[in-house]
């Protein structure tokens, strides 16, 4: 009647490639081609600057509430950049930089943030799901997509994003469990940004890491420095390659930090200290990557300035474009579109009632 330890396969590793000063561990260098390194840098700058612009638009009342991503650029782009276009990305709602990388237009984000359904339209050539606001619920859709890919004998991969808070949701556990059972080509990327609105990571789970939850579902889990884009890239590349080759799912925990508020409706000073924010500002993923690229000879002050300028003009064009578009949108009858494949009779009646209402004197200007 022994009482022996059970050998549980897999151990959780922590991975870091670039330290806070941008110094590289050469043994772990994923050897990314220079043009991709610069594209990643531009993507990070765009994510950061777009956040700033959205924040000012929000403060000016030109858009509604939105969730900023500042501080999480590396955790998003390092992961999503290893996908090919035919792979699928399943976002939560705080992956703006990753969505842009995957082809979503800045205009559409502005539209969505300003309350236009047209903003969450997904272009026909993009294999991205729209944002999912109910926390963790999208993890299961990613598993279903991956199951279907496997069923059709394709070698595409599905990458799902979610936060630390989502790991408390049943759907996260059900999703990982199903993925483990069916060995789906799935990569689960947890953006552990330390805070689910006001509740800290330590109050989500007693587990030492979030990555270790993978072991319970029979898949590898790895914790990476989420502010180190090279580490995220390396871990994601391994996971995607494994999934593509039929090796099943992986959970990646990116340890990062939400430097700004949960959404613009939130005031983080109510629940966290300035010291903590300062500590994480010191670990800024963008600063670190800039140092690394400069050291590597790929960046210099002129290149930094020209990148910023190009990004700002891209954002300005998007804001102008979105604001022009919004003047053309808002026709109320469009809200009946896409609820069903075909408008059922009771909705046709309701739409007709709105048509009549809009035709009343003085009504036509009150709804658009």
């Amino acid at each position: 009647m022994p009482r022996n330890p059970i050998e549980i396969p897999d151990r959780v590793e922590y991975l870091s490639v670039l330290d806070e000063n941008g110094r590289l561990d050469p043994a772990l260098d994923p050897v990314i081609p220079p043009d991709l390194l610069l594209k990643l840098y531009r993507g990070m700058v765009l994510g950061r600057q777009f956040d700033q612009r959205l924040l000012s638009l929000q403060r000016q009342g030109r858009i509604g509430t939105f969730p900023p991503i500042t501080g999480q650029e590396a955790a998003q782009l390092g992961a999503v950049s290893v996908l090919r276009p035919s792979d699928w990305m399943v976002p939560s709602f705080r992956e703006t930089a990753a969505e842009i990388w995957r082809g979503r237009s800045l205009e559409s984000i502005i539209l969505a943030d300003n309350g236009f359904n047209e903003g969450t339209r997904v272009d026909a050539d993009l294999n991205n799901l729209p944002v999912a606001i109910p926390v963790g619920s999208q993890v299961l859709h990613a598993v279903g997509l991956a199951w279907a890919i496997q069923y059709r004998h394709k070698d595409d991969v599905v990458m799902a994003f979610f936060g630390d808070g989502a790991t408390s949701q049943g759907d996260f556990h059900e999703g990982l469990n199903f993925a483990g059972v069916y060995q789906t080509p799935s990569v689960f990327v947890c953006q552990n940004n330390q805070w689910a609105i006001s509740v800290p990571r330590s109050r989500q789970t007693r587990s030492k890491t979030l990555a270790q939850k993978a072991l319970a579902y029979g898949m590898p889990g790895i914790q990476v420095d989420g502010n180190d884009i090279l580490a995220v890239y390396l871990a994601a590349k391994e996971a995607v390659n494994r999934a593509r080759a039929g090796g099943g799912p992986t959970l990646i925990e990116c340890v990062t930090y939400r430097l700004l508020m949960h959404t613009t409706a939130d005031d983080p000073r109510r629940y966290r200290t300035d010291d903590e924010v300062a500590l994480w500002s010191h670990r800024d993923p963008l600063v670190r990557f800039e140092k690394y690229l400069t050291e590597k000879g790929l960046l210099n002050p002129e290149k930094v300035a020209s990148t910023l300028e190009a990004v700002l003009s891209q954002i300005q064009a998007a804001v102008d474009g979105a604001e022009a578009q919004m003047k053309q949108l808002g026709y109320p009858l469009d809200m009946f579109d896409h609820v069903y494949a075909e408008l059922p009779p009771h909705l046709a009646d309701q739409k007709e009632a709105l048509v009549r209402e809009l035709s009343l004197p003085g009504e036509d200007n009150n709804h658009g």
Partner: protein
Amino acid sequence: MAKMTMVQALNLALKQEMEKDDRVIVLGEDVGLDGGVFRVTEGLFQQFGETRVVDTPLAESGIVGMSIGMAVYGLRPVCEIQFSGFDYHNFHQIENHAARLRWRSQGRFSVPMVLRAPYGGGVRALEHHSESREVFWAHIPGIKMVIPSGPRNARALLVSAIRDPDPVIFYEPKALYRAFREEVPEAQEALPIGRSQVVREGKDLTLIAYGAMMRPALAAADELMEKHGISAELIDILTISPLDDTLFVQSVKKTGHAMIIHEAPRSFGPGAEVSARLVEKAFFYLEAPVARVAGFDIPIPYFSRENAYLPSVSRIVRGARELLSTSLN
């Protein structure tokens, strides 16, 4: 033609649709080797294998959430939730995503899935195995909610549900699974979703029912005629949502009297919507208040008392006679 139970007819629908279309995948708890706890999926695992008849872990949200992803990819998942009393675990997946992905993505994606679940009382089951909560689903824009009432229409409606471009919640009256047999043709047939049917014509009052309640409603119509000389028209709603009000409105314009019968709790039940439609569309033809014979607003009791809860033939007959004696003019 063969005489079939509803279980056999549903099985035939799945089998034939799976033979025709490799996008159709059956998944759920115990649907594989076991053939489902009610045997609706019997034999499918042996015929189509484990990639098309998928036993899942015991997690309703997982089953439905995964089905959504499969449907977005272009498959036609037909998932079974073992009892409708457990599908609250997956309610949010239907409300938040299945019903909205077409809308959210502005037409790029759709969720052509079917959620099958046995519902309703009358089989002396445990708690959570006898509820009738179709109105939860009927209230969700973007969802279609279908309830058949016999083997033949169950088969024909399930075929339509599988082919439907929108998500369909398909509640099967478990009390009728093996209650009677009907002729079911071998050749596939489909009944349109969103259409009710006149099952029996009459002139004195209109009985409006669906699912398991069609049986007592039909028996009540017989008794009303035989014992009381009352001619009842009987309408089977078949699709709870989107609700087809054309036939019952037309019927009530003829009879002036309407009674809706459902085992779901009375308040805010499907009868409330039917009644509202009648008030909106046939008010001036009504000769008496719209009557409801429904479940009480309590949890359906354990089975020693369920017969007192469920609408019965005598309760319908009594209600109909009262209705006809309280004409407004």
